[in-house]
């Protein structure tokens, strides 16, 4: 399958020209929130942040980096596990090991005797480690949105079926639609529309975003990740504004079905239940987290080890990651950005995660200040 057209300069130039015309005719300046951290990364990497601004479209990053929005209490609970328990293996995705907390990070923590932190690419690797080390407790510290949650949940059910009693999952599971409602309800920033995350939507489908158009009258498009994909998503939102017909458009139909992935949703619904979760920067949001149902308690690390992530953990002094996650602050507007907080010495998670707004900004636009955002 050729992807050349998705990167073709004439295609992107043509789409940008169409977008510029639509933006000029719009009744007010266009400010779109890309919800997904993978979009933030792609938009910066391909230079689209600047090109879209020149075309009259301001892109604002949203809360779509799960590593970033997971409060420190979760990270501290994971650090305590591996530093206090012997014969223990804590597995997680790479970014998760570098989040700085009051207790240091998983990378700097000194594990207890015969214990270790292991980075994995897939939850399946964590289960493999448990199979290879039957005499050790193995915990997968699983973070993610709806894209990742099904994979982790399938792994958990497999471990349950194998009666692998020393394997469990510490969940930091977040769902995307509730924070969108929280951001819109707060009225803290003005948004003209949304680029909805492509791979979250491959699982949840289009319907969960309907309320944005219905209740808030705002357009949006489920969007892919190549340069032309992103511009198709932006064009779709602008066309909806032009036509005065806000809805949820699917601009990534080769991957996303209207109904999402029913098998993935079924796995989640069977094993998990929603709860009112605490997000970094956004506070407690009704129904925004998922955790294991009581029948899955044997696989739930929170139950097994009696974990209750501390909710009083505050961000590092001066770190404004929370405001960045709400889209109210551009990274260079933070006094720490690029001076005290750098990719080598991150003070907050937005400078750690490969999709964190601060890291992405630092990597593609440099450590200096950029033009101030008009609000």
């Amino acid at each position: 399958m050729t992807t050349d057209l998705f990167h073709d300069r004439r295609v992107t130039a043509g789409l940008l020209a169409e977008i510029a015309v639509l933006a000029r005719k719009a009744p007010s300046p266009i400010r779109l929130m890309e919800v997904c951290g993978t979009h933030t990364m792609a938009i910066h990497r391909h230079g689209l942040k600047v090109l879209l601004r020149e075309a009259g479209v301001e892109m604002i990053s949203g809360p779509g980096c799960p590593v970033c929005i997971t409060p420190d209490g979760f990270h501290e609970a994971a650090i305590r596990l591996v530093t206090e328990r012997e014969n223990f293996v804590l597995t997680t995705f790479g970014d998760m090991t570098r989040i700085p907390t009051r207790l240091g990070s998983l990378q700097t923590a000194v594990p207890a005797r015969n214990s270790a932190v292991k980075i994995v690419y897939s939850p399946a690797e964590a289960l493999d480690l448990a199979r290879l080390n039957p005499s050790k407790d193995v915990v997968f510290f699983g973070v993610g949105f709806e894209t990742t949650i099904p994979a982790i949940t399938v792994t958990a059910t497999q471990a349950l079926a194998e009666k692998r009693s020393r394997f469990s999952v510490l969940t930091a599971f977040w769902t995307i639609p509730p924070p969108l409602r929280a951001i819109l309800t707060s009225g803290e920033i003005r948004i003209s529309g949304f680029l909805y995350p492509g791979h979250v939507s491959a699982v949840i489908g289009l319907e969960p975003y309907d309320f944005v158009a219905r209740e808030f009258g705002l357009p949006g498009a489920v969007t892919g990740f190549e340069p032309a994909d992103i511009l198709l998503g932006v064009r779709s939102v602008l066309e909806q504004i032009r036509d005065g017909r806000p809805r949820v458009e699917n601009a990534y139909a080769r991957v996303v079905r209207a109904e999402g992935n029913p098998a993935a949703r079924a796995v989640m619904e069977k094993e998990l239940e929603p709860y009112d979760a605490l997000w970094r920067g956004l506070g407690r949001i009704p129904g925004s987290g998922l955790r294991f149902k009581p029948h899955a308690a044997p696989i739930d690390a929170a139950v097994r080890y009696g974990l209750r992530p501390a909710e009083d953990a505050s961000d590092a002094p001066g770190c404004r990651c929370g405001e960045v996650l709400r889209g109210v602050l551009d990274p260079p507007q933070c006094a720490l950005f690029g001076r005290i907080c750098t990719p080598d010495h991150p003070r907050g998670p937005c400078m750690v995660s490969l999709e964190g707004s601060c890291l992405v900004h630092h990597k593609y636009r440099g450590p200096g200040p950029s033009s101030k955002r008009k609000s």
Partner: protein
Amino acid sequence: MCLAIPVRVVGIDPSGDTGKVDYLGTKMGANFALIKDIRVGDWVIVHAGFAISRLDEKEARETLTMLREVQNAGEA
């Protein structure tokens, strides 16, 4: 975090839930538990080792056609 890549299925284990995919010439293990009726030759989107969606060839062609029109309009 939600990075996922399109890959082609090149092998399916007897269980049907796992197999191999080809990513730019490299064979990798993948889990297909979330995809119904997986077949060798299917294009899927893989995230954290799990296929989460099958690519729809017809939709892909339609998008490519649309992009070609934009490309041609630029040349005219």
